[in-house]
């Protein structure tokens, strides 16, 4: 029931993910951040098996950092997407990762981009993408309302529309979502959309 979706706007890209960590019928937590900052200008929203998701995205994050240390310049979004695909493809017939990824990034030369990377390592550059059961609602919503070169307000509005659809139509809809944005100023958290707040446990 994990929902990840993303879209490209005018000089920015947006990725939205739900924040529930679920095992079978139990919700462990409702504020699990599934969108990782790969570097200053890249976001990786991931959905799939919990262990694979964390392990694989951290592995990609550390390798992206290593490239920058070794070569002095950061990877482009396309290069990071192809590197991710390569790792998934190599592991596919040995020890496959069950992680679906939406990689969003901003490059000075080419602007914003979004890559859809399947768990079986199919990669495609897209303007809008989504994974999970939520994709049936969010993709349809984006097909209807998306235009190229949307402003941040319009894009977040569209993301909110998708979240409303998921909440109202998905049987086990996740309660909380996080929105992250990447543009020329970098990758950062934009906001949360919460309906359930985790209670704070007092420190012992």
């Amino acid at each position, binding site marked *: 029931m994990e929902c990840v979706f993303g879209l490209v706007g005018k000089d920015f890209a947006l990725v939205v993910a739900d924040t529930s960590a679920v095992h079978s019928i139990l919700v462990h937590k409702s504020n699990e951040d599934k969108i990782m900052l790969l570097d200053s200008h890249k976001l990786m929203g991931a959905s799939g098996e919990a262990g694979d998701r964390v392990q694989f995205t951290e592995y990609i994050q550390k390798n992206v950092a290593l490239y920058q240390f070794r070569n002095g310049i950061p990877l482009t979004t396309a290069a990071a997407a192809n590197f991710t695909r390569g790792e998934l493809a190599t592991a596919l017939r040995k020890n496959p990762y069950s992680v679906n990824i939406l990689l969003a990034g901003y490059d000075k030369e080419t602007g914003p981009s979004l890559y*859809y990377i399947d768990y079986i*390592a*199919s*990669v*495609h550059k897209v303007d809008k993408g989504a994974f999970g059961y939520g994709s*049936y609602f969010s993709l349809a919503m984006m097909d209807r309302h998306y235009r190229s070169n949307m402003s941040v307000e319009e894009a977040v509005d569209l993301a909110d529309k998708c979240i409303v659809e998921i909440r109202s139509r998905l049987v086990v809809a996740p309660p909380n979502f996080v929105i992250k944005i990447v543009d020329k100023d970098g990758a950062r958290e934009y906001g949360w959309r919460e309906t359930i707040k985790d209670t704070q446990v007092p420190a012992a």
Partner: protein
Amino acid sequence: MSIFEYNGSALVAMVGKNCFAIASDRRFGVQLQTIATDFQRIYKIHDKVFIGLSGLATDAQTVYQRLVFRHKLYQLREERDMKPETFASLVSALLYEKRFGPYFCQPVIAGLGDEDKPFICTMDSIGAKELAKDFVVAGTASESLYGACEAMFKPDMEPEELFETISQALLSSVDRDCLSGWGGHVYVVTPTEVTERILKGRMD
């Protein structure tokens, strides 16, 4: 569901008078869901050899990357481009290497050989070459494509007529297949030029 039908595809290549045409559909889907409608299935290896890869998208991307690598090495060593017959043998050998754990893709190879004689062939996922003098097909829409091509094909067509014939054969076949379609991508190659055209068909 068969692994070859996971992504859905349609590919056809036809021989004309001193020219060939190779065409594909543009859908990138995951079973019943369409992810993108601008997926590239036909790749240029060099000016006179094109390969289309149908079947599982991740394996098509992997096989394409491996073939480009092998061809670039060949170009460095031999200081010339590969002939289409040689390239077909390379693809066949590459696929048979994985005989007991195959790549789930079916290539369609088209090229201009010695004296610009058109060459087309297809093979199954383990590299069994199928040479033909008229047309070859692959993908989920292959059965429809066989029928359409058999009905519409004439030998020794000029490039313009060949383009019309291959386009009509492709569009009418993918309209009967739910897993392929969303437009067409046609390359018509003569000894002097390569024409690339996008077809607009039924977008469903």
